[in-house]
């Protein structure tokens, strides 16, 4: 998968910044997407295109447990978030939704805003097509891959019952 990177050289980007609580009366991806990242970068909605990536530093998605953060990102077209590390509930929600959250060391230092990236999930590689560089990431845990292949946690449970 190929896309443009939106780089935020910032730690602790929290779920209040990703989707402020004032918009939580909706759980529709397309509605939430209109306000995604609003309190961090009001221009994000204008910039983001389908298939893009967000690149950040440590502890991405900290704060509230709202799964709306994943839905808002996905609704806006974001295909994956690549960060040094993720907050636990955000990471869990990503796995449960089959949304890509990739842990890659120092990624925000290596990638510039607007670089074009290509992610190879199975081999654990990120190619920077703009800078002609390649970075490795820790492949997803086996359980996460299984959930993703099933299309999320509920599908996985449904299949297990059969």
């Amino acid at each position, binding site marked *: 998968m190929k896309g443009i990177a939106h780089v935020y050289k910032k730690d602790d980007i929290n779920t209040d910044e990703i989707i*402020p609580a004032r918009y939580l009366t909706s*759980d529709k991806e397309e509605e939430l997407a209109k306000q995604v990242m609003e309190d961090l970068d009001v221009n994000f909605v204008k910039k983001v295109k389908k298939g893009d990536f967000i690149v950040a530093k440590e502890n991405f998605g900290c*704060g509230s447990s709202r799964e709306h953060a994943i839905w808002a990102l996905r609704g806006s077209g974001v295909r994956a978030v690549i960060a040094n*590390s993720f907050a636990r509930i955000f990471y869990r*929600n990503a796995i449960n939704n089959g949304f890509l959250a990739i842990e890659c060391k120092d990624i925000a230092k290596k990638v510039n805003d607007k670089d074009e990236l290509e992610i190879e999930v199975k081999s654990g590689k990120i190619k920077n097509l703009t800078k002609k560089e390649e970075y490795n990431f820790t492949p997803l845990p086996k359980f996460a891959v299984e959930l993703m292949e099933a299309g999320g946690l509920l599908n996985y449970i449904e299949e297990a019952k059969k």
Partner: protein
Amino acid sequence: MGMTITEKILAKHSGKDSVKPGELINADIDLIMCHDVTTTPAIDMLEKKSMDKVFDPEKVVVTPDHFVPNKDIKSAEMVARIRRWAKKHKIKKFYDIGKHGVCHAILPEQGHVTPGSTIIAGDSHTCTHGALGAFSTGVGSTDVAAALYSGKLWFKVPETIKFVINGKMPKGVYSKDIILKIISDIGVDGALYKAMEFSGSTIKDLSVEARMTITNMAIEAGGKSGIIEPDEKTIEYVKSRTKEKFEIVKSDEDANYEKIIKYDASKFEPMVAFPDLPSNGKAIKEAEKANIKVDQAYLGSCTNGRIEDLRIAAKILKGHKVKEGTRMLIVPATTDVWNQAMGEGLFKIFSEAGAAISTPTCGACLGGHMGILAKGERCISTTNRNFVGRMGSPESEVYLASPAVVAASAIEGKIADPRRYL
């Protein structure tokens, strides 16, 4: 090798003799708490997949609280939907208006939390209930759906960091100051994915409710859970609220900890966490030097909206007035707390001081309603998060502190040391 309290609870609930950190388990869930914001998506998911069932209605507690009493038509629709769903599935433990309150204050108060149990909810501050010796953690809506349907949930067994806090706390220092100090020391990701176990003589000396303030904020250090071994106080607290049987689980002497961090409580001071992270803590002397004028003082939330918190604030506010130009909001966390505060005459003190008293709600803590901040405004608050835009405008500021600091700051109209009033 022995196990920690967290490992023991998770082993027992996944049918194993022992578990190790990093191990993936599927654990039985004893209690699922559902609130207005994260439950409707879970109901949607289950209905769409024809998985619309609840594994055991007795193990579900519903507490609409975030935008309650309904702040607008959309939030009214959400709660109406949850009411219909609960009725359909015969969920009786439903805390509707009249019995309502902030979920994490209601759960232990009404006897739904028992030591040794597993609790999940679609709310990050679910870690609060570890104060009673339960494994309790916040999850997303998909997890809530999965647990409602199957009664089970997957977990990676966390490593545990042990915090040993000994000694007598100085006057004017409360459990909120302990946790703000810890988060400031280890950072907002200092306990990422980990269980935080709090122990030592200082913790034992705290009331059960004061302990909840500490475990409540484990998530603010990235923790998966916060936990305190049950003692006589816990047992008394729980037994006075429920007839349910429970098992006391404690950590083994030779349990393995990722880290042990020790504190001398006699050195603690009142703390204030500056914007925009709970880890930006400063001791009150330094905070006062910054001369921070406050437009609003907020007392409430699952962190500090219990009766003890209101009593502390009342003690400080008695005979004083909230400074002209500062608004003070008092939000008792539950209906029982509200009634108790009224019975004890605390409302008269608050009202005479010029503070406004609200019905229980999560309200302004998360920027929902009932006390939203305008651009450029500052709030000193007993809540747990001071992220950008948390209580309103992205250009407002939130400072976190104990009920004592909030009350003293309301009197002076700027961040103030409560020890002058004690």
